[in-house]
């Protein structure tokens, strides 16, 4: 049986490692040459976590896999205990709970083991870095967050991990925080992620509102039992969730952060932007497959966006000269494939592709890191070439990975891509066509990369005379990408103490090449779990059967894996192999046979406009910069104008009015009214007293006269008016 304690330890160990290394890094920003403790903590925690994950999966499988294992550790948000949701489900409360089912097992194994391998690689790659401990702190923190994401039993815990990996992505992309473009790239990644997260959060709110809970088990059980009731709201929920997935998994229109994220160190690109973080969106969509299946419209949106992204990114990739950029656009394109798979209903194919993609893309990125490391920091493929002589192990592993990603059987990429394309062919012909074109481009640019890097002669001694030289500078990005970016090997360069030109490329140490071999082997054998019936598997395949508990029946209707006739399947396989071969052949013709790339240059000059468009990524960044950034700035300028002129004008106007009204007015009032009254009182007193003073004449006879007159008057009045 699965042990809850061990389950909790799986994410907690990397968290602990991050904490320890973090405290050490904060105390000592410049890491000593002796990095034993850092290595021990980081590798130890991750390795132990991987072992515990494997143990958990074994115990789960051994326990029968009858149902998902879920354990709530404590009540995280007890806010709505007692509140009865829309379906009579009491309690809004959110538990901090982990869920082990076949899907999370798959993701768990991928995350922990690939993560461990990349940790090992990084010990070699980052060996000459100053912020070594800080790097491993962030890496461990990322592992913790990613594990929360995949292990979470409800959308809220997943969201915690979701946000956490976004944070770690920002920290790691901007690892070289003293470089402006690295910091900008980190910010761009975080902002793009947040835009997606906005939609994601709204989706979670709607789920709460509709189902009264965010727990996977309860939500999917409700939706599965009564599909008709939720079909209407499901479209909105799914589209919102997919917006989040677009942000995290770099689909159109929020993919722009991924190419710029190559400013981070290469292990980061491998781990986060190839194998694990960017696949979180796919994981989320597959986890919510019940909801998506309720809404064919949402699924269509997912499929279309995925397919368009796949071909869009692939076309950009064929014109890039930075080795990491090619791989970045390749990642975007492959993610598009995964979403295409999810959108047409091939959820298992999507996760299968996640797994195989993790193997070969990580291998490719780490290999590229090895190449860059060996070339002393050079990333421009035009300055590479002929590295097969200097870096044989890297070359072999990268070749294997290129064959895998191109989709040649019997390597892993073939099986996963074939399953995707087969399912797509069943449902949407046009999307299938787009997928095929993207597959062609994939094969082309991958082999272009291979040939430019490893074939021919080493070109770093001179720069090729391209008329539009320095194309990377021509792009007017907000975040310019630097071809000569030393993504971490400045110190290694200085350590070797010589310039790029005079440096012979050398093979990387065993800590790096060993990992490359492991990944390459996985890329070879990894596809066999999904081997289709034609080749000796079963229908459904092992992998499909493995994941089927996640694909709940909808209103009593079980999920059926599409089955095609042998003939159709064979034709599809042949066509996908054919397009892969076509791509390889074009790359061969342009870049291998013609070592001076004369034909490639001619082709480029003939289609100069198109090439420039592709090289500058369809000017999407410029467009965003102009519209969104410029728009925001213009809006803020307008508001500032409004504030300065109108608000301040009103305030100043009120001030003037007050001064006039109360200042002058009151002074006038004081002068004429108040003083007038006071003076008036004085004047009247004086006048009155002057009047009365006359009575006091001092003459006694005057008094006597007045007295007598008064008496006469009184007497007369009294005597003559008596009735």
């Amino acid at each position, binding site marked *: 049986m699965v042990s809850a304690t061990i389950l909790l330890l799986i994410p907690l160990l990397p968290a602990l490692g991050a904490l320890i290394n973090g405290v050490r890094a904060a105390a000592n920003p410049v890491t000593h040459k002796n990095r034993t403790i850092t290595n021990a903590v980081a590798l130890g925690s991750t390795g132990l976590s991987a072992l515990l994950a494997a143990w958990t999966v074994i115990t789960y499988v051994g326990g029968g896999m009858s149902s998902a294992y879920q354990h709530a550790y404590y009540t995280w948000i007890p806010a709505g205990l007692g509140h009865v949701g829309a379906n009579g489900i009491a309690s809004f409360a959110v538990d901090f709970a982990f869920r082990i089912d076949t899907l999370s097992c798959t993701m768990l194994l991928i995350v922990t083991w690939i993560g461990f391998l990349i940790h090992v690689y990084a010990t070699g790659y980052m060996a000459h870095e100053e912020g070594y401990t800080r790097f491993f702190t962030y890496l461990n923190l990322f592992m913790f967050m990613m594990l929360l994401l995949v292990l979470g039993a409800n959308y809220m815990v997943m969201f915690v991990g979701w946000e956490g990996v976004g944070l770690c992505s920002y920290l790691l992309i901007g690892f070289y925080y003293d470089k402006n473009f690295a910091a900008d790239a980190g910010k761009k990644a975080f902002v793009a992620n947040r835009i997606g997260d906005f939609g994601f959060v709204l989706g979670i709110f709607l789920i709460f509102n509709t189902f009264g809970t965010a727990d996977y088990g309860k939500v999917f059980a409700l939706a599965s039992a009564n599909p008709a009731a939720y079909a209407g709201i499901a479209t909105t929920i799914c589209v919102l969730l997919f917006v989040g997935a677009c942000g995290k998994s770099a689909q159109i229109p929020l993919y722009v952060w991924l190419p710029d994220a190559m400013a981070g160190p290469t292990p980061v690109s491998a781990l986060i932007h190839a194998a694990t973080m960017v696949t979180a969106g796919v994981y989320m969509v597959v986890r919510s497959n019940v909801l998506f299946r309720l809404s064919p419209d949402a699924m269509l949106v997912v499929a279309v966006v995925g397919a368009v992204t796949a071909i869009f990114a692939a076309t950009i990739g064929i014109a890039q000269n930075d080795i990491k950029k090619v791989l970045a656009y390749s990642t975007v394109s492959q993610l598009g494939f995964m979403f295409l798979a999810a959108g047409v209903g091939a959820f298992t194919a999507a996760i299968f592709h996640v797994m195989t993609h993790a193997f070969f893309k990580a291998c490719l990125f780490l290999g590229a890191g090895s190449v860059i490391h060996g070339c002393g920091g050079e990333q421009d493929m035009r300055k590479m070439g002929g590295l097969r002589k200097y870096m044989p192990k890297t070359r072999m592993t990268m070749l294997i990975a290129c064959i895998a990603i191109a989709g040649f059987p019997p390597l892993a990429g073939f099986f996963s891509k074939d399953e995707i394309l087969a399912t797509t062919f069943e449902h949407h012909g046009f999307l299938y066509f787009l997928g095929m074109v993207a597959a062609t481009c994939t094969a082309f640019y991958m082999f272009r990369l291979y040939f430019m890097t490893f074939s021919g002669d080493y070109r770093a001694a001179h720069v090729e005379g391209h008329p539009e030289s320095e194309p990377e500078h021509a792009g007017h990005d907000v975040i310019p990408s630097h071809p000569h970016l030393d993504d971490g090997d400045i110190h290694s360069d200085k350590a070797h103490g010589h310039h790029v030109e005079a440096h012979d490329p050398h093979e990387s140490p065993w800590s790096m090449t060993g990992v490359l071999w492991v990944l390459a082997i996985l890329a070879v054998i990894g596809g066999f779990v999904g081997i289709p019936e034609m080749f000796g598997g079963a229908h459904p395949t092992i992998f499909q059967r493995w994941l089927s508990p996640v694909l709940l029946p909808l209103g009593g209707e079980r999920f059926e894996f599409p089955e095609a006739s042998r003939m159709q399947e064979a034709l599809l396989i042949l066509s996908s192999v054919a397009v892969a071969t076509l791509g390889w052949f074009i790359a061969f013709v342009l870049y291998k046979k013609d070592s001076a790339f004369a034909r490639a240059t001619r082709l480029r000059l003939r289609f100069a406009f198109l090439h420039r468009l592709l090289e500058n990524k369809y000017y999407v960044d410029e467009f965003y910069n102009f519209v969104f950034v410029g728009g925001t700035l213009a809006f803020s300028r307008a508001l500032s104008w409004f504030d300065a002129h109108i608000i301040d004008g009103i305030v100043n106007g009120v001030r003037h009015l007050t001064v006039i009204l109360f200042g002058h007015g009151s002074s006038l009032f004081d002068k004429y009214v108040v003083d007038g009254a006071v003076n008036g009182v004085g004047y009247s007193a004086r006048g009155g007293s002057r009047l009365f003073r006359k009575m006091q004449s001092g*003459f006694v*006879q*005057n008094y006597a*006269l007045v007295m*007598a*007159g008064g008496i*006469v008057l009184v*007497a*007369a009045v009294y*005597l003559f008016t008596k009735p």
Partner: protein
Amino acid sequence: MSPELLVFAIIGTVAVAASILVISMRNPVHSALFLLLTFLCVAVLFVMKGAEFVGAVQVLVYAGGIMVLFLFVVMLINVHHLPDEKVLSNFWKGGFAVGLAVFILFVTLVRPGVYHDPASSDKPLRSTYTYRHRKVKNADGTVTRKLIRRGKVVGNSEAVGMALYTDYLVPFEVASLFLLVAMIGAIVIGKRELSAIEEENIPAYMLERSETEHEVKEAMSA
């Protein structure tokens, strides 16, 4: 025409004429003498009205005391040397008007026949009888106290004396006290000051007199 009426007419006319002269004579001595005449006429009128004691007191006090006092003061002040430029004050117009008004008031108020004079004047004043309180038995047997006239006719003096010392004792004593106070006051006020005369208060016409200068010197040396 009874003798009373004739006497009244003559005495009245003399009194009025004398009083008019009192207030119109320039010389204060003349005014004093005419005032004396007025007093004597008034005394006669008192006697005519049966108030002999009052008449006697009038002559004694007024004519014999007050007038003498007035004359002393007039002489003391050397009045006849003072050149009064004007006799009348500034308020003579108002004065005449008020006087006229008062006169008219009296004339309109005092109407003959209002006072119901008794037909005969032979009835002696009740006061000229002495009275005793006697207990008298009434017809129905009750006993009341009554003032019984004793039948003896006394003179006005005795009657007034009886009244003064019995019914009006307190005012009598107060009057005596008043006289004491007045005497003291007169002495105190009229005392000759030994301080200097304020020269600046002396009006111009006085300074032309040689006697004033002499008096000032006397006063200063005293």
